[in-house]
């Protein structure tokens, strides 16, 4: 029956970034520091006894306050790279600088208490309550128990955990909740750096998507330097400010912003790795607000058929959108039908085709608009505002113009050097 705005297929998880690929201005006091590398790999090689080279002469700069995703097939060295940052693994050659200081110079357990770490299976301590799990690092740092537990409760609130879980044990929580606890635990001592090793791969796809959204929300609030390892390229593109794609044997193929990665992969390997519909996925980074929407053919059901006929002809459209008095969409009326009817009747009594999926003009991406257009029986899709009221109509032609304009803007900015 009637579709609500929640039915819109693609909800861009990060609409504020969709515009120019940057975070919304004004929210970051660290703005000037962007680009300053917090973690630097200098010619790092990890060779295992027996000659296996896990990481091969890696040079990598991870900018402060951004999410860097390391993605690649298993065995490509991405996890090894991550674990060298907090010295769970020591490099064979080269060095890793954290805020200008060689990590090898800090005692390992001391270093690790200053770096948040989230692992795949959550790795919660089964014998500790949720609050004590979260309070782990503050307690290790010698905080009094009461203060550490207060901090734990703050973090539960931050990651969206019900306070009723405070005294429960990990086995009493679902996988998704456990993973939230894992994130809260990693953030407890407010470390500037957060390492995440395949953090969402052990949960089902729906929970995974909500955890990814949660990470994006948290990151918009906290601006940690996040290094996340995944084998899931969709995840990389969704959560990463920067994505580093690894070749199978410990070398990086390309480091880029996700939209540039999708737009211009450096070679066949990266292109294959990204998957076949990268062009369409890239549209997820362009906002639907760039569309020039047709507004003239949006008519109230109280309007006369004569008026609708004229509007359709002026606009050169073969359908008009009929709305109720609040501009909520009701359905499509065909021009062919309008022409057979008495011009003085109102649109209310016409047979209408269902209006299909809508997209939110202010929040969704061109990808959502395109999807709604493809799914629509008329080849036209309705752009709505936050209340679901019709703003205007898009067509394939209008989409093509908007995509072209977005591409030109993106090219104007210039692809970032890797």
């Amino acid at each position, binding site marked *: 029956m009637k579709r609500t705005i929640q039915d819109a297929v693609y909800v861009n998880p990060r609409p504020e970034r969709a515009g120019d690929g940057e975070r919304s201005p004004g929210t970051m006091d660290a703005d000037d520091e962007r680009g300053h590398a917090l973690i630097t790999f200098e010619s790092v090689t990890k060779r295992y006894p027996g000659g296996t080279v896990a990481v091969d002469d890696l040079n990598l700069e991870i900018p402060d306050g951004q999410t860097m995703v390391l993605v690649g097939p298993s065995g490509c060295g991405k996890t090894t790279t991550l674990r060298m940052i*907090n010295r*769970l693994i020591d490099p064979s050659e080269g060095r890793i600088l954290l805020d200008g200081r060689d990590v090898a110079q800090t005692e*390992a*357990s*001391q*270093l*690790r*208490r200053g770096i948040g*770490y989230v*692992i*795949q*299976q*959550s*790795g*919660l*301590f*089964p*014998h*500790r309550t949720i609050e004590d799990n979260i309070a*782990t*690092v503050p307690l*290790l740092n010698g905080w009094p128990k009461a203060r550490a537990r207060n901090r734990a409760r703050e973090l539960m609130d931050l990651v969206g955990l019900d306070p009723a879980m405070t005294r429960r*044990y*990990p*086995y*009493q929580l679902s996988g998704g909740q456990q993973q939230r606890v894992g994130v809260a*635990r990693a953030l407890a001592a407010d470390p500037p750096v957060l*390492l995440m090793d395949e953090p969402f791969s052990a949960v089902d796809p729906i929970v995974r998507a909500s955890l990814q959204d949660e990470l994006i929300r948290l990151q918009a609030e906290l601006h940690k330097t996040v290094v996340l390892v995944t084998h899931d390229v969709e995840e990389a593109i969704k959560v990463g400010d920067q994505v580093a794609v690894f070749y199978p044997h410990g070398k990086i193929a390309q480091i880029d912003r996700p939209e540039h990665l999708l737009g211009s992969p450096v070679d066949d390997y990266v292109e294959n790795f990204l998957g076949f519909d990268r062009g369409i996925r890239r549209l997820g980074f362009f906002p639907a607000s760039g569309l020039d929407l047709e507004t003239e053919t949006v008519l109230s059901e109280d309007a006369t058929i004569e008026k609708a006929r004229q509007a359709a002809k002026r606009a050169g459209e073969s359908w008009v959108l009929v709305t109720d008095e609040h501009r909520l969409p009701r359905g499509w009326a065909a021009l062919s039908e309008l022409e057979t009817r008495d011009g003085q009747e109102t649109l209310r009594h016409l047979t209408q085709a269902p209006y299909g999926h809508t997209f939110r003009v202010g929040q969704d991406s061109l990808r959502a608009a395109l999807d709604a257009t493809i799914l629509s029986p008329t080849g036209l899709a309705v752009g709505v505002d936050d209340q679901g009221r019709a703003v205007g109509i898009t067509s394939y032609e209008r989409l093509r113009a908007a995509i072209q304009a977005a591409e030109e803007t993106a090219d104007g900015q210039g692809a970032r050097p890797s």
Partner: protein
Amino acid sequence: MSWAWDNRALLAHYLVQHLYLALLPVLFGTIVAVPVGIMCVRYRWTWPPILSLTSIFYALPSIALFVVLIDYTGLTDWTVIIPLTLFSLSVLIPNVVDGLRSVPPPVRQAADAMGFGSLRRVIRVELPLAVPVIIAGLRVATVSSISLVSVGQLIGIGGLGYFFIDGVQRDFPTEIYTALILILILALLADTLLVLLRRWLTPWEAGRRVRPGSRILTATWRGSSAGDAV
């Protein structure tokens, strides 16, 4: 029944001795087994020789040990306590090792990544998680020890075992049955207390069944066969 009542002072005396002879070895065994187990997990190369050693302890006939030890410790309680301690070790060390190894790798890894030092990790994370497996071993060791003490009567130090020899010599079965029942009650009581101890120490296990590790089964099997052998 009237015999038991008339001799309650004597029974109580031997009961106390029995308990003391049975439990001290388990206590000593635990004190030694925990650090040795930790060492075996931490320095893997130490585990195969120690495993062989525990098997030898396990196989050693107590009677032979009594005879050897008598030259050094004489007719004292130590002559019984030392062999029983070795027996406890043969059960407890493998259990401590298995308990520590049963800690899921992600948990150990998370502990490292959180910045636990390696000793702190063992004490605060691995040992608490090993408690269910260690207590399973303790139950076997304790029950076996309570049953094995009687053998000490061969050199005159055997707790309630006194009544077995005495009953046979005097051809008076009541005495034997009474002591036997007391030993069984002691064993059941000790076992129950250990189960309660485990529940108290591991509230996080409350909602789920303790996973039966292969070694617990092995230990149970070894323990019961030892009991039978006596």
